[in-house]
């Protein structure tokens, strides 16, 4: 019984790892190498590019649902990993290559690792009910049903002034120009904020030494 459960668990972990590796490979491939496949080749109802979008969107939303409804806070962190990776891949589809790599470096490499550290440091592993919810599933679903229709209605019905012919182009140079000309003051303020954050986080999180 236990060996069977263990093998099932191993298979699911292997599947998850493969999925994550495939996603990272996909992002790197799209950012670094030119796309060899015809993105507008038709595949039944949808084109190949659209199919990629649907798969990535489903992955992102599945991860987000895992964050929202999982019982274990560690599983929530894994869901957050899927959601952040999916969002980064969507950035690639929106011709935001620099932003996709930044998402990978800052979110996956920084924020998610920080969250995992916090989970490990503050949770007694195995105590699942440390991370349960307070309003309960009914409240969460009710909130979802209250908010989602309004947002979806606006997204679908609003007459956006679309600009159809935007080709994909590298954006790193343009972003650098914009940071050092139009957005110079916010850019410098952001660096100040990061310095203050570094000092503040160290001061808050260090062990209290008695004042004697």
């Amino acid at each position, binding site marked *: 019984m236990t060996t069977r459960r263990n093998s099932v668990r191993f298979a699911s972990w292997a599947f998850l790892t493969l999925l994550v590796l495939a996603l990272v490979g996909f992002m790197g491939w799209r950012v670094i190498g030119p796309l060899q496949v015809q993105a507008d080749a038709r595949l039944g109802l949808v084109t190949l*590019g*659209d199919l990629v*979008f*649907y798969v990535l969107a489903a992955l*992102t*939303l599945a991860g*987000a*649902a895992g*964050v*929202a*409804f999982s019982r274990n*806070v560690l599983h*929530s*962190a894994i869901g957050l990993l899927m*959601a952040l990776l999916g*969002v980064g891949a*969507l*950035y690639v589809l*929106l011709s*935001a290559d*620099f*932003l996709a790599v930044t*998402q990978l470096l*800052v*979110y996956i490499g*920084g*924020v998610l690792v*920080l*969250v995992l550290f*916090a989970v490990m*440091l*503050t*949770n007694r592993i195995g105590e699942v009910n440390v*991370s*349960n*919810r307070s309003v309960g599933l009914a409240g969460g679903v009710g*909130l*979802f049903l209250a*908010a*989602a229709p309004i*947002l979806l209605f606006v*997204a*679908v019905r609003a007459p*956006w*002034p679309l*600009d159809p012919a*935007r080709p994909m182009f590298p*954006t790193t140079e*343009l*972003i650098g120009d*914009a*940071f050092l000309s*139009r*957005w110079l003051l*916010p850019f410098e303020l*952001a660096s100040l904020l*990061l310095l203050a954050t570094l000092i*503040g*986080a160290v001061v*808050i999180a260090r062990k209290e030494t008695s004042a004697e």
Partner: protein
Amino acid sequence: MLNVSLTHYLVVGALLFCFGMVTVATRRNAVGVLMGIELLLNAANVNFVAFNHYLPPETWAGQTFGEVSGQVFALFVIVLAAAEAAVGLAIVLAIFQSTRNTDVRDANVMRE
């Protein structure tokens, strides 16, 4: 309908936002609440980048910086999210050191 355009990305952003809001509202664990905030910020970012790609760029002082303004805003959001995560998790650790718990309902005093 099935051809991907701005609306599809907005729908993804809206659903991400709803999931993040549900997480923030229903979690008891402070780390879980912070994860929900990350989802909310990512939903806003998806919208920024989608608008940037699909809407026509505006010009400023004779130059079209508007081509990437959405992505610049998204980068600022990422910077703020990283700062927020660092400070937030530091606060969670400080609360955990004093109460041995990360339940947000227990964190109702500024000092013991």
